């Protein structure tokens, strides 16, 4: 049998919206018989914590659609024209936006981050935590899920050098 295709991902962001791409791509690639390793670094690292508390922030995402996850379809499809500066400055708005996004995803049959991460582990995706970021941010291994590796840039590059797909997310 031919050598399986390989993919190397760097997950560098930890907001709810950016938590999706690495897990979706990794699980899909594994379902396509590819070997996958994800290197979690900087703000992507908390995605390996036992409890993921990723939030989404409208600040810095002015193109983010603001939809309501309830009511009839025409109502759900309204993109509410709330000025970004207003959303960003309103205390508690990130919690609201996170709740709305989670519900919208759920309504559309999109798995939660926790579910996708579990699926990735099921299908054999290797997850690597950046040791340096662990130390810099003062993270404790006991807060992280089991079965992950801890390594640095050289280890990632050694793997990525022999892969077919490399993405920085």
């Amino acid at each position: 049998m031919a050598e399986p295709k390989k993919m190397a991902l760097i997950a560098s962001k930890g907001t709810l919206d950016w938590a999706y791409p690495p897990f979706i791509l990794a699980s899909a690639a594994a379902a396509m018989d590819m070997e996958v390793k994800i290197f979690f670094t900087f703000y992507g690292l908390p995605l390996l914590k036992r409890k993921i508390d990723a939030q989404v922030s409208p600040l810095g995402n002015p193109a983010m659609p603001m939809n309501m996850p309830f009511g009839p379809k025409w109502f759900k499809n309204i993109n509410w024209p709330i000025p970004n500066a207003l959303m960003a400055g309103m205390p508690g708005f990130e919690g609201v936006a996170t709740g709305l996004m989670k519900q919208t995803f759920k309504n559309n049959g999109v798995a939660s981050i926790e579910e996708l991460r579990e699926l990735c582990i099921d299908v054999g995706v290797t997850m690597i935590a950046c040791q340096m970021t662990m130390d810099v941010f003062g993270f404790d291994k006991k807060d992280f899920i089991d079965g992950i590796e801890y390594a640095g840039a050289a280890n990632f590059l050694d793997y990525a050098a022999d892969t077919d797909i490399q993405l920085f997310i």
Partner: protein
Amino acid sequence: MSDIKVDQELDCRGLGCPLPVLKTKKAVGTMASGQVLRMVCTDPGSNKDMPSWSERTGNPILKSEEQSGEYIWYVQVK
């Protein structure tokens, strides 16, 4: 072509990308070579995703059809 013998059914209706492909892969993994899986989903993205998955993994799609917003796939286990 209505004489395809289905060995296992998989309901992925209401699920979004990448779940239909993942669940299909999982189901195929539990089946024997030559058996046929009938997967139903409502994800329009499956129109492109399922053929790509099939080609990459080598599990052929014997037939596919669309019925009122549902996409039906007959996948043979390689």
